[in-house]
């Protein structure tokens, strides 16, 4: 996995900022994100609700809700800056080079179109297949994602399938044109536990088969620790810590990551122990504190934390963190 670093990254996001238009002016909800995804890598993104992780992903495809816009930054994917592309070019990339799996398979499929018609769409618009060829290919795709019956299920409507089946259809749709990047935005959240495991397995099967790179957004750090190569932790529109899955899970340096991990129910941690919770709520993007956004909730808060936000600085190896205390500790360690 470490050998991937030397290659040109598949996706390089630099200083991504997303702003929301409000009556009183613009509010930044993503405040400068740097991300790198190497080919064949699985990047996990974790964070609380509203931390800007989904918005960042949507912005890559240019499908932000109208009130939101990318205010600055670049996202170089396969050599082109996604934010500088025309809509028509983006439309070509979407679904062909970048696949996207959304969290809610119940509502993400058009209820009045057959599965086949919906599966055929990317094939027809990107691969240029005719109606019949697309239909046949769609049948093969269904088999590929483990829906028995294949072509015979194509004329079903979404409501005739279970949640797990629908998510399989979503996956089939996103990989129909053999993209190089798959963005999975909490693909298992809405599913029950056994189905979750099946879907995770399915995505990894497919990743192996096609050599996909994956960005997996989740709030479930435990899940990410098992499937991701690297993990980026989001808090209030920023990355607060980033590193390999092992680094993040076993030796987190940022107090927020630490708190996240200690709030995780882990089977072998022993019974009867109360889980730790993080007091307080994440800040309102419009009223972020001047200093570190996590400072108000931080147990290791110091005076400087309230003055200016810490930068995301490299720590040991691939790890980066944004915390004055952690920086000091790292420096001490080096010294």
């Amino acid at each position, binding site marked *: 996995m470490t050998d991937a670093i030397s290659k040109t990254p598949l996706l390089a996001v630099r200083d991504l900022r997303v702003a*929301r238009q409000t*009556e009183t002016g613009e509010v930044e*909800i993503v405040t400068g994100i740097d991300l790198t995804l190497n080919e064949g890598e699985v990047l996990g993104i974790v964070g*609380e*609700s*509203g*931390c800007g*992780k*989904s*918005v960042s*992903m949507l912005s890559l495809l240019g499908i932000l*809700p109208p*009130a*939101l816009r990318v205010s600055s930054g670049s996202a170089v994917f396969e050599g082109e800056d996604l934010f500088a592309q025309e809509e028509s070019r983006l439309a070509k990339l979407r679904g062909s080079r970048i696949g996207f799996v959304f*969290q*809610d398979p119940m509502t993400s499929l058009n209820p009045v179109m057959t599965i086949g018609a919906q599966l055929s769409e990317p094939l027809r618009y990107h691969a240029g297949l005719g109606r019949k060829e697309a239909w046949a290919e769609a049948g093969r795709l269904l088999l590929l994602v483990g829906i028995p019956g294949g072509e015979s299920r194509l004329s079903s409507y979404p409501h005739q399938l279970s949640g797990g089946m629908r998510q399989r259809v979503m996956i089939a749709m996103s990989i129909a044109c053999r993209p190089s990047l798959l963005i999975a*935005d*909490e693909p298992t*959240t809405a599913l029950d536990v056994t189905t979750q495991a099946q879907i995770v397995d399915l995505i990894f099967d497919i990743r192996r088969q096609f050599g996909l790179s994956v960005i997996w*957004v989740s*709030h479930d750090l435990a899940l990410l620790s098992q499937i991701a190569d690297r993990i980026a932790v989001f808090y209030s529109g920023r990355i607060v810590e980033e590193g390999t899955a092992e680094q993040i899970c076993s030796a987190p340096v940022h107090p927020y990551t630490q708190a996240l991990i200690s709030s995780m129910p882990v089977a072998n941690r022993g019974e009867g122990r109360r889980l730790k919770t993080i007091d307080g709520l994440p800040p*309102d*993007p*419009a009223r972020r504190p001047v200093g570190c956004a996590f400072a108000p909730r931080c147990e290791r808060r110091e005076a400087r934390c309230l003055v200016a936000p810490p930068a995301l600085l490299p720590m040991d190896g691939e790890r980066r963190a944004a915390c004055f205390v952690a920086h000091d500790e790292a420096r001490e360690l080096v010294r």
Partner: protein
Amino acid sequence: MTGQSSMTSQTEPDTAKQAPAGLGRDAWLRLRRNRLAMLGLVIIAFYLCAAIFGPWLMPYDFAQQDLAHVNSGPSPIHWLGTDNLGRDLFARIVGGARTALIVAFFVTMLSFSIGAIAGAVSGFVGGMTDRTIMWLTDVTMAVPSLLLVVVINTSLTPLLSGWMEDLFLKTGNPMFRDTTFLDLSLVFGTIALIKWPQYARLMRAQVLSIRNANYVTAAIALGLPPTTIIRSFVVPNALGPVIVAVSFGLGTAMVLESSFSFLGIGVQPPTPSWGRMIADGMRVWGAYPHLLIVPALALAIITMAFAFVGDGLNDALNPKGKK
């Protein structure tokens, strides 16, 4: 929570912090941001003030005839001009506003109470009662409304007017010979007859959906008393669609009243009604266009205002994505 819903909570920072009782405030905040709806509210408030206080503030009574100025255009004495009997058009428009708003208000109240009771009974009791009431709504809604109104009005006016007069002769109460009272009660009755099924169906649907809603089941499971359940859960949740329906209903009731009075059914002169004023204006519009334009505009503006508010309420009470 998910990325999607997180955006909702960011859009509405207040929502998360509001207690359930804040639903109304929350909706009001959303409504206040809707400029058209606010414009509509301002217009309605203006009309309302005009209808309530106008007749006292006007220098003229709507029936008063200034025979020195007949069919005159707008002038300092008569701001909007006068009609063929020298009556001040402004005073008549204001008087018409009173008629229209009285009709809108009472008709909606009447048809809503009939409809709400019928619908609630239908929804709660179910079975044969439900089927009978729903069948009645079907039957009422199947008859073309204008036809129904004309038949009812031509046939009931004589009977009702006779009864009222007998009542006057017996009691001496001048209310029973008041023509406006008679006309208005007929208009209320007939329009309410057309409109109650809509409310009944809405109410029934609300009752059914709430009866099966999880939060009500939960409340029952918690052993909350029925009155609390109704006050805290059923009413606030049923209120949204009902308020929207009523606000649209107010507008359509007014339009109905004016089309009936255009046809000569409804409030009789000299009590002013916009529909009748439009009908009179139509006949002379070539020579005195203001007699047509002014009442037509008065009607159009308030109708639009009600539609704006209805739309705004719809958006405010049923925000998109609030599933």
